[in-house]
């Protein structure tokens, strides 16, 4: 039985698509058949982050409207076995998503995949609601910043009231908190909310803390999911998060400020 995981946040620009790409890639690397579905109709980004933008022929909306079948729309990743992408339409808007249409596509995908990662658009309108409605698990992505945390809180409320599981009185959606763009140094200077602060407000189990990293921008622009940059701090942090998602236990890294060694202090490394 496939697990449907929605990557959501409420606020825009906090790293949902980066996270969807990294987590989806990580799951596929772990041997799980995984598809990442771009729900951000009209603002197609996932294909860029995944580096498959030149291979998009049909999209999610075409499949919903039965203008194409799933095989035609799914894009197979060239690097990782077991990884597919279902891109969004750039020319349509969110109204193209209907509950029945989305359900049918997800049911078809569920027959072929172990994990379906839904990359939600920002906001709390139709697109975001469609992305979270059928979810079994949710990765709530939040920056260590008050407005992002409040929007995440809003989305968590919707997960527990507006989702299929809530409406049908099933087991609630499993919630995971992923904090992105975390800078321990700025937490120590009081510019940024700490992991504890965020946890105190949201009270959701922590899946991972991704440090603020140059590697993320570099990965986005080169179309390589950052988790493939296994030397980078962000790549390692995402790998830890994937491992935790699969039930492994991992120490939290990159949440303490690094002590500078003598040499780097002298030479300003």
């Amino acid at each position: 039985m496939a697990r449907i995981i929605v990557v959501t946040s409420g606020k825009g620009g906090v790293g949902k698509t980066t996270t969807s790409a990294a987590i989806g890639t990580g799951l596929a690397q772990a041997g799980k058949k995984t598809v990442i579905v771009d729900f951000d109709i009209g603002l197609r980004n996932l294909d860029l982050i995944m580096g498959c933008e030149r291979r998009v022929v049909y999209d999610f909306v075409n499949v919903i409207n039965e203008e194409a079948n799933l095989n035609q729309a799914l894009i197979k990743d060239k690097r990782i076995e077991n990884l597919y992408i279902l891109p969004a339409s750039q020319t349509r808007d969110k109204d193209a998503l209907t509950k029945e249409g989305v359900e049918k596509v997800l049911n078809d995908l569920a027959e072929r995949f172990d994990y379906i990662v839904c990359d939600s658009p920002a906001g709390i309108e139709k697109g975001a609601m469609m992305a979270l409605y059928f979810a079994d698990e949710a990765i709530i992505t939040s920056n260590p910043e008050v407005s992002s945390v409040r929007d995440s809180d809003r989305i968590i409320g919707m997960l527990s009231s507006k989702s299929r599981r809530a409406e049908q009185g099933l087991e609630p959606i499993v919630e995971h908190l992923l904090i992105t763009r975390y800078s321990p140094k700025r937490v120590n200077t009081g510019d940024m909310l700490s992991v504890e602060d965020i946890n105190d407000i949201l009270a959701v189990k922590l899946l991972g803390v991704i440090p603020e990293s140059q590697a993320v921008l570099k990965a986005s622009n080169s179309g390589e999911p950052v988790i493939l940059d296994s030397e980078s701090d962000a790549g390692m942090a995402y790998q830890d998060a994937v491992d935790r998602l699969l039930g492994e236990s991992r120490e939290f890294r990159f949440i303490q400020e690094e002590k500078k060694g003598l040499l780097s202090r002298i030479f300003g490394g």
Partner: protein
Amino acid sequence: MTGNRQLIDLAELLLIGNRHHMAENNIELKGTNFTLFVLNISDGNLSSIQHALQQKVQQAPAFFSGAPVVINIEKCEDEIDFMGLSEVIKSQQFVLVGITGAQSNAVKQAARQAGLAVLTSGQASQAETPVPVVEAKVETRIETQVEIQHQDSPATLFHQGQLRSGQQLYAKDKNLVIIGSVSAGAEVIADGSIHVYGHLRGRAIAGAKGDINSRIFCRNLEAELISICGNYKLSETLQEECWQHAATVSLENDQLKISNLD
């Protein structure tokens, strides 16, 4: 709304009058309750009464000045000079209303002739102890007039878990208990009181239909807004009062009063 509520700080309360209403064209005669001092005396020695009373008054002159007083002569065997007693009481700035505890009709008659009302206490003094010359305050009786509200449904709405930003909960005609936190941007409203067993970071509106006795309780006060019967305070003005502490909010004289619960 509750009716006529009397607060008793000190001394004894005596109830006078029954509750009968009589409306005339331009006057209205009706019975009601007042708080009065009762002075118990054990003999008719005016000078010792005056002396003891003077000592009493010196302890709190402002409090006793002009206070209405009733003399209880139940324990007094002597014949009393009511005119003289009246003067003694007046000299200590009390206003003598009447006597109570009179056993015989002759005594009652004497009191009436001295211009004093003869009262029958609803509850006779039960003090058995040897009575000193003057003894004040024995018992307290409080009468509160309350309109009983009949409610068909349980009077409390329970919510288990955190109330998230954007969520709103209204406990109509009920108290509201949140077992969890109320996030910033969430709103809890009750016609009765609100209890939050967690952080109160959002808005809490108690007594939404005007129950002035409703209150707000929380384990940690960080609210955006608190309101009882439309009297509200914003987080800006809450910063000095129990901020981030366990607190209760009540309404006193149309002012929100915030008290620490720690």
